[in-house]
């Protein structure tokens, strides 16, 4: 755990992009390690670690975003295979992926969390189509995946046929915690750049920004203090936990405030960062746009608060 964090820290410091195999390494890999049979572990883990096979994760659907339990993709039995039909959305880097971890309903009449399977799907199978989605930042990280009568061998169900939901929640817990830690480091790097820029301003302008810098520093220190607690929690295996939602909310507000402060420095030029004299100002504008999405992806802030209310505070489910 500590090693992974230190490694991530170095990557971020060097301003390296996220490792291309991140979804596999951070999300799918641990899930296969935990729930997979010996055969599945052997088939997948080594190649995943070696970076020979890249992974993506198909959980969300157009009508199952915050409410993942209403997913409609089906995987129905057909002799030794399962036949997969449906559509996934917001899948990162699906165009490059060799494999996809897919949540699908194995009984079309079942509802909510029931009869959901966790399938390991070959992205090179016939019937798989990927469409890139252009984000506001101009990037194309996210994709839609369409499955039309895609055959998946029954042996590629991870865990039991109805255990997909539990595994997915576990996966999401790890993903949230790990993501918060990495993103926190990236934000600190952006903050260092910001300080440099303010230092370079004339003294009247830099004085005007001093308090905002101070506030940002406080928020980042608080975020890091909270990460110390999270690392302890991860080390103790206390994941997934409703505390993940606390971390997520704290990350979101920190990040949104950071890039708002940074782009405010650009004034009108925040939409044409190339026009500013600040090097790499585009990173800030992208951070601003990305930061607004942070309160939506992986469960909106409203959902995170409901999780806290119900599972940390023991309040009744809101009707």
């Amino acid at each position, binding site marked *: 755990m500590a090693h992974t964090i230190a490694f991530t820290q170095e990557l971020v410091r060097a301003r390296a992009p996220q490792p291309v195999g991140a979804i596999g390494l951070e999300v799918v890999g641990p899930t296969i390690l935990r729930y997979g049979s010996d055969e599945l572990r052997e088939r997948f883990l080594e190649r995943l670690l070696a970076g020979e096979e890249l992974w993506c994760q198909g959980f*969300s659907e157009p*009508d199952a*975003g*915050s*409410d993942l339990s*209403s997913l409609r993709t089906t995987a129905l039995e057909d002799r030794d295979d399962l036949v997969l039909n449906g559509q996934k*959305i*917001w899948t990162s880097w699906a165009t490059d992926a060799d494999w996809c971890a897919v949540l699908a309903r194995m009984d079309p009449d079942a509802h909510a969390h029931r009869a959901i399977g966790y399938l390991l799907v070959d992205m090179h199978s016939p019937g798989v189509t990927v469409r890139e*989605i*252009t*984000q*506001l930042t*101009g990037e194309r990280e*996210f994709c839609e995946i369409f499955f039309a009568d895609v055959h998946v061998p029954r042996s590629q169900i991870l865990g039991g046929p109805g255990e997909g939901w539990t595994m997915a929640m576990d996966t999401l817990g790890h993903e949230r915690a790990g993501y918060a830690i990495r993103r926190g480091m990236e934000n600190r790097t952006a903050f260092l750049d910001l300080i440099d820029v303010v230092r370079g301003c004339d003294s009247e302008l830099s004085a*005007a920004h001093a308090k905002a810098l101070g506030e940002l520093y406080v928020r980042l220190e608080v975020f890091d203090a909270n990460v110390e607690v999270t690392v302890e929690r991860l080390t103790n295996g206390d994941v997934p936990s409703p505390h993940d939602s606390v971390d997520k909310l704290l990350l979101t507000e920190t990040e949104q405030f950071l890039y708002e402060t940074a*782009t*405010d420095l*650009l*004034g*009108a*030029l*925040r*939409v*044409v*960062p*190339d*026009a*500013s*004299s600040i090097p790499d100002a585009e990173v800030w*504008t992208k951070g*601003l*746009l990305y930061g*607004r*999405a942070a*309160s*939506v*992806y992986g469960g*909106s*802030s*409203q959902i995170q*608060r*409901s999780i806290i209310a119900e599972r940390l505070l023991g309040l009744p489910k*809101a009707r």
Partner: protein
Amino acid sequence: MALDSDTATEFRRVVRDSMNAILARPGTRPELAASGYSDSAWATARDGGWLEVLVPESAGGAGLGLQDYAPILSEAGAHLFGGPLIENGAALRAISTHAPDRVDLLHQFAHAPLAIVDSAATGDRLLVSDDGVLTAELPAVRFATSARWLLVAYVRRGNGPEVAVVDARSSAAEASLRPSFDPYSGYAALRFDALRPAASEIVLSGAQAQALVADLRAAARLLASCELSGLAARALDMSVEYAHQRRQFGRTIGSFQAIQQILADMTVRTLSLQAMCQAALKRADGARGAFCRVANVAKAYAAVAAREVVEAALQVHGGIAFTREFGLGSYYTHALALQGYYGDHHQHMSELGEQLISGEVVVA
């Protein structure tokens, strides 16, 4: 003079219908999404007589004021209509007030798209001419690639403020479109290579130029606020509509209290921004000092309020809002652009505060 309420409502409806009609034509939206400008969209504005609203009767116009022109900006904000409606409007207002005899300019600005070159627009260094010659690299000027005319505010070294209107096609002025997160602002880099405005091109000098520029800026701020107000109102409408339709957890998301609280806050922000714009517009024909101040107040509020509303709209919409193909994101990036145009809330609030302390602004 001002339109009576029924006529104003009818005029606004006509404007809205014309916008919808031209935007429904296949080519318009892609053009706007590329450079913020479309010849056919501009023709709609020109031929609809939208700009004539601000041309004095003595010059053959409708002789109305900002109050009757502003709804066009609100509709432009709601439709992401693009084009230099702020620039042409602000210039018409400033010229008709401070140089009403320049009928030639009034006609030009009522017809052809204009770009304003003014350091206050994007917080640049002051533009200075040496011996009447302008040489400069301007990092970002709205619609500089689409404009037929450039209204340039600068300081003639040793001689004070000056305002000139020059041909945008002059070989001494070269504009190139910037890659932008908000194409609807049509930001371009503009280079002046020893541009020398002719005597006939210089509109005013000295204190008169200063007064014109102050008025131009106030009008631009207020019109930008009105555009933001219309943009926010549309973002709210889209969100309410979406909340009615989108289902999660077996019900429409509009039935969730958490979503309702957000939409209600958006409503407070949107309605109060509209009220602020109206209050400022009523003061457009009053004392210049008071108008400049209230325009700054309106811009300060619009800068935060509209942004807040659109950010909340993104939140209500969820993931879909962050794709380029869904329209809401463009409202956000345009709001971010307008937020900073002619000063954001930080700038205006700080300045107003300093003026309150110095006594330059007095509270009634």
